[in-house]
């Protein structure tokens, strides 16, 4: 969960950015959780996530959905990223009906997630986790515009230099915005990277950034 809380951006930028996690609990329902997690993934896949993955196997841009499903074991935590509120609503409606048997976590802007819960009929959010921001030597961080892109991989596996390289590639016509976004999604193995938002942010940065490294 903490890794999806690294996301930066204003409300407008984050309002259509959701990560839905499926997580079995150690000592409660972890043993024998593999079929439940697979069922959760199948349900998520039906609702058209922009990205989906398992941290130890990879995401749909590194491998295939069948490979991810095959390699699910007891205790696997899976993640699906959505770029559309309505899809999350329809997903939660189905999950509410089918009860996958593992904990489901929705990461997004809190009041928007609460609105989704109300719409689905799930009531108040059960447990909340907030990020209180970054402290310390923040001058070591890259520019905020770059952070908005790189923090979509909460494990910090998307390098800030890669953003610069991809902007240069796009400007030189070597890659399209979509291809550049996919390149970053490959680095984020767990599938938290929102490609739609990534392409949008890169597009916004293009006229502003001049890159002369590498």
């Amino acid at each position, binding site marked *: *969960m*903490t*890794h999806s*809380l*690294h996301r930066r951006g204003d409300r407008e930028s984050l309002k259509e950015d959701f990560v839905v*996690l499926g*997580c*079995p*609990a*150690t*000592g*409660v*329902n*972890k043993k024998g959780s593999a079929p439940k997690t697979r069922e959760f993934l199948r349900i998520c896949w039906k609702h058209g996530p922009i990205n989906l993955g398992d*941290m*130890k196997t990879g995401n749909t841009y590194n491998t295939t959905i069948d490979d991810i499903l095959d390699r699910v074991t007891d*205790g696997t*935590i899976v993640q699906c990223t959505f770029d559309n509120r309505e899809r999350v609503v329809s997903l939660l409606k189905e999950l509410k009906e089918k009860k996958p048997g593992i*904990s489901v*976590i929705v990461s997004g802007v809190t009041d928007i997630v609460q609105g989704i819960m109300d719409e689905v009929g799930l009531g*108040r*959010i*059960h*447990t*909340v*986790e*907030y*990020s*209180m*921001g*970054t*402290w*310390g*030597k*923040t001058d*070591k*961080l*890259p520019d905020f515009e770059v*952070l908005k892109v*790189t*923090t979509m991989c*909460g*494990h*910090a*596996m*998307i*390098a*800030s*230099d*890669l953003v*610069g*390289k991809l902007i240069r590639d796009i400007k030189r016509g070597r890659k399209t915005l979509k291809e550049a976004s996919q390149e970053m999604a*490959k*680095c984020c*193995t*767990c599938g938290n990277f929102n490609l739609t938002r990534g392409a949008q942010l890169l597009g916004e940065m293009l006229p502003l950034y001049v890159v002369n490294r*590498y």
Partner: protein
Amino acid sequence: MRVDEDKCIACKRCFPYCPLGRIQILRRHPKIPGRVYIEIDQDKCTDCGMCFRANVCAVDALYQPAEPWPREVRAILSNPLIEYKGSQVPGRGTEEMKTNDVTGRFRPGEVGIGIELGRPGVAAYFREVEVVAMALAPLGYEMAEENPVTQFMSDRKTGKLRDDILNERATSAIIEGKCRSSRWRSSQRFLPRGRFPSFLFWRGWDTNIPSTARITWGWESRPFSSMNRRHNGGRP
């Protein structure tokens, strides 16, 4: 992560994939005239394996040897593909509040606080992690047992880490635990702007740790009893 100096042709394709930025140095090959290769600064590298996984090396010069203790903690806390056996969760933390609906890890009156050092893309030495952990300990902060950082402590009451890992570096290290919400509230009056969760962290920051830290906190928003009825048939 290491580079085979006999294979590397210093094409620099792996450079932009390193989450920690420029930690590579160009060196002249001692035996092959005119050959330049890349050497990775082993003190700064956290063994996250991203350059290797990016699969951009045309000559397969990058490799990750099995590192001995204490260096192996770098990969445990930096490579998301590696699962720490203590927490049985891939990554650096635990399940935290993800499974609070069935585990009841955070009960009414308790606040979970996680302080993560190093991300995004800055990395932290364990000696910096120790500064923050030792500042937290007197608050009545109950460290999460399964968290890797807790496991690396030589004294959990004071937050002191093992001496042999202090000079190791990780992409991310999460100090994780919980305390009574009353403690949380009383601590807020010491905070610079009155809304940050831990004055102890403020103390940690004040010691000028050369890294970044991010604080997360979570709590149960529903009464525990209603949670049990809804989700787990009464299991605590």
